[in-house]
């Protein structure tokens, strides 16, 4: 269920975006399920269609949802938020490795070693 509170300091766009992310994370929205149309959701929630369209665009850019032409907008099949966050972190890490002009194999070895070290962040 998506809830929009007009009195909240959080902008409606962010409330909507996080509501959809939560719905996917909680299993309320599963992969392949169709989302309401932009216009319909905007009227249901009493927000501007642009607000819903922006939330959909951002979620589509992050790979959580996908638009299939006139069929509508659907939850992407690989829409697990944790996995997506991991993919974003990996992309940032890869970009950093390239910036530092380090060897990819060496970078992978470092990641593997870090993953095998128990709770390395607190070490």
């Amino acid at each position, binding site marked *: *269920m*998506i*809830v*929009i*509170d*007009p*009195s909240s300091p959080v902008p409606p766009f962010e409330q909507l975006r996080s*509501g*959809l992310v939560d*719905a996917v994370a909680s299993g*309320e*929205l599963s992969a392949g*399920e*169709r*989302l*309401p*149309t932009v216009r*319909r*959701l905007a*009227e*249901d*929630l*009493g*927000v501007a269609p642009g607000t819903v369209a922006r939330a959909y665009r951002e979620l589509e850019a992050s790979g959580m949802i996908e638009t299939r032409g006139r069929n*509508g907008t659907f939850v992407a099949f690989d829409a697990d938020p944790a996995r997506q966050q991991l993919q974003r972190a990996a992309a940032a890490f890869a970009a950093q490795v390239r910036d530092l002009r380090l060897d990819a194999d060496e970078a992978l070895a470092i990641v593997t070693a870090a993953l095998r070290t128990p709770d390395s962040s607190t070490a």
Partner: protein
Amino acid sequence: MLDWITTFNGGVLCGIAVVAAIALAASQRKDFGETASYRASVRARLPFGSEAMAVSIRRRTRTLLRANMWGLLATVAVATAVFVSTPLSSSPQFLWLVTLSIFLVVLTAGSVAVGLRERLFHPAPTAMRVARARALGVADYVGRARRLAPLLLLIAAAASCVAIAVSDAMRPVNFVPLTLTYAALAFAVVATIGGRYAERLVLAQPQPASDTLELAWDDLFRADTLSVLRMGAATAAWLPLGLAVTILADAWLLQGPTDFAALFHWWGIPALQVLYSLGQGRLPDPLYPDFLRPMAQVAEEQPA
């Protein structure tokens, strides 16, 4: 001198008109719809969250009834014209035709018109709003049997029309019942396509709600509208099937015209009405707010 069938048909028409007129007059009262909305609340296991919510539900109940009663009066007016000007008035088929018109035109068109024209709730601009994250379809509102009945009946009707065409080649059938059956099949196809279009319109309507209880009430009225649409399509699809079965029975099984053959094609209407009325006024479990779902359902959904 009128025969007893004509008198009976005329009497029933007058009775329907009187009932509709009384209901329309009674619905002028401010408190009209209170009993009906409480009954709906008990049947659906949905409470009124506030007085404002109860007023909105009462208003919708009243509007629906008034739309149906005006439709009933319009049907009676058309039926009276047919009654006065054609020999159908002395036919036992006449009242069935009126019944069919009531199911197809009055209930269906009335429910759809009210569903498309009116919003059940009007939350204040500053109020919280809730909406479902996923788009719902007919399958979310109407049970499997009632959802699939129109399509299955239409397929059976098409198959039986092919059968009477084959039968006609072997044992020629009267032109009039044959043409009527094909016309009824064409009507059923149009009714099915029209019904699907109406369903899409109903499903596309926004559901402004400030809490999950309001959303559930809106879903309840929507479920009833979609169910009535499927009932209309199923009724239209039954007609050619019943006519075709009658023709086949006449040609191959029965010796001469019988009461069974004369009225069989109408029998499906009350049967379908029973099938569809069983699900009216109830919401499928997943559409209830979490705090109202049956405990068994909640327990079933919780992981072990």
